[in-house]
């Protein structure tokens, strides 16, 4: 049963990260990120205690809330990209390449890190998708989503090798800090003047 749930978590990570790449609406983006953190929670709790993985889930959701509130206070802008639908095809294609590449890597990484394949693939996949997001987006919001995805993937992999509470706390703080930095980027113009 647990093995099936691990694979389901991987599928959730896969679907949410690809949809994050394709969907341009910020509400969808944040919703998908929140679901993605559920998958991260499940894949992290394989190696870390549930309490620590819950902390990651909560900090991830808090990050989503911070970004959501920041978005609500900014002037709505069109999120459409000029190159659609070619852009969408390109994204699906590159996401496919990343899926294949990370699967190949995950086969070795799972042995190397001593974790099960869904966790290794899930972590590497999120890292890859996060990097892809960073590579093809220049909007502050999208870049922060990319960084959060990348960090979430890294946390899955790092949980297998480091179980320190301090590291978990600092990584949660970094997740929240990234969201706050993203919120700051979105709402800052003229916020404080000398």
């Amino acid at each position, binding site marked *: 049963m647990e093995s099936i749930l691990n694979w389901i978590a991987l599928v959730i990570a896969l679907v949410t990260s690809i949809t994050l790449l394709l969907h341009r609406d910020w509400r969808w983006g944040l919703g998908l990120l929140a679901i993605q953190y559920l998958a991260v929670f499940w894949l992290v709790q394989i190696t870390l205690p549930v309490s620590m993985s819950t902390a990651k889930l909560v900090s991830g959701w808090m990050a989503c809330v911070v970004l959501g509130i920041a978005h609500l206070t900014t002037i709505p802008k069109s999120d459409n990209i000029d190159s659609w639908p070619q852009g969408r095809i390109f994204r699906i294609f590159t996401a496919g390449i990343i899926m294949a590449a990370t699967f190949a890597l995950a086969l070795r990484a799972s042995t190397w890190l001593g974790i099960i394949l869904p966790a290794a693939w899930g972590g590497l996949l999120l*890292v890859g998708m996060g990097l892809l997001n*960073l590579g093809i987006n*220049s909007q*502050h919001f999208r*870049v922060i989503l990319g*960084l959060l995805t*990348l*960090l979430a993937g*890294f946390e899955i*992999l*790092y949980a297998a*090798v*480091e179980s*320190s*509470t*301090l*590291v978990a*706390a*600092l*990584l949660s*703080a*970094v997740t929240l*800090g*990234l969201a*706050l*930095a993203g919120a*700051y*980027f979105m709402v*800052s*113009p*003229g*916020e*404080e*003047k*000398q």
Partner: protein
Amino acid sequence: MSAPVLWIFLPIFLAGILLLVRNQKVIALIASLLTFILTLAGWFLPIDTAIKIGALDFKVASSVDILGRHLILNSSSSSLLTLLFGSATIWFAITPLLKTPRRVVPLGLVIIALMVAALAVEPFLYAALLIEMSVLISIPMLEVPSQKPAKGALRFLIFQTLALPFILFSGWLLVGIEANPGGIGLVQPAAILIGFGFAFLLAIFPFHSWIPLMAEESSPYTVGYILWIFPTVTLFFGLGFLDHYTWLREAPALGTILKTVGLIMIVSGGFLAAFQNQLGRIMGYAVIMETGVSILTLTLGGIAGMNIFLMLFIPRLLCLVLWAMSLTILKGHSSTLLLRDVRSTGRFYPYATTGITLATLALAGMPLLAGFPPHFALWEGLASTSLTVVFWVLLGNLGLIICGLRVLITFATAPKGTRWESRESPVQRIVLVVGFLALFSLGLFPHWAQSLWTRLPGIFAHLGN
């Protein structure tokens, strides 16, 4: 009372209070006072030694435990604390003379405390997380009022965040190598991960693009502070790696890698600076060059290399403070800081323009200025092994000198009959003149600053001996 509480938690606590204060002069005064007191404490207060004042007996403990890990500041760290907090005092004391946002000083105080924590945390690899938190804190500092935070700050955030996984994973591998010295298979991946981690952290080519971008877009004074604190602490963090791991320190390829990286940074920084038309970007490229110079000093090896590495610390601080302050003053005249917009400003801002020119030339290693003694020692050390390397270093320096002369010509060129005047405030003039005198004094009498860094090698158990 413990040292981490004094030098890490107290500044963070005070910064939290200062964020609520509205008067910038009060903020700068309190922050400067605190950092000055902490500088004196670093110099005079013994750590882990019983102190008796009258009937009062107390001891400043060296460590604090947090969630099963330690923050340790022992007596060997005190010289570094003195230098870091002394430098911060200079940075913070000048802010009331310039139009910087109120939050710059409190956030700057948090950053310096987190950086000290990064150097104090055990296992020291966790420093990457604390550096990342400093990066996140610095984002609001880089915001320009009435303007969207631009690409430079975002790219800074991306590159520094990308460093985090590399450093943390390399740490895991390094522990594996330490525990199992026969595990040669781990050495190569660990070295690659460390390399990428530091390439991102130190903005090594091709991951350097955020520096000129940020220097162009954000407030020069804030950028100056960021470009001083991050490379300085990261270089110390890097030295920590070399000091801690014998296999890394004694790797045959290390010298070649450091030499190549250092040369690329010096030559590319100098070359690109020579062709820049924006004063902020020139400062950015000069910082890239200077990081390259620091990396190159490590190739000299032994205590000689370490001494030159540490000698660079104070001239770099002086140059950056002077440069950032002068640029901020000049920004009041021209918001773009493009060379075409600052033509003939030497006639209206003679002190600020002199500051920029002197700082540029000092960082290029011009004789009589503060940068010359460490640069000269480096050239001498490198020449004993390879003249080709010295040639490339001098070529990079030549680029920055050409840039300095271009800037000087731009400042000095003025239509006939333009009157000389000084639009800097009297206090700004005094501070700038003190800066000029310091640059010349350290150029002529470098041993004056020696006492500030002679105890520093003690931080490193192996590299310092």
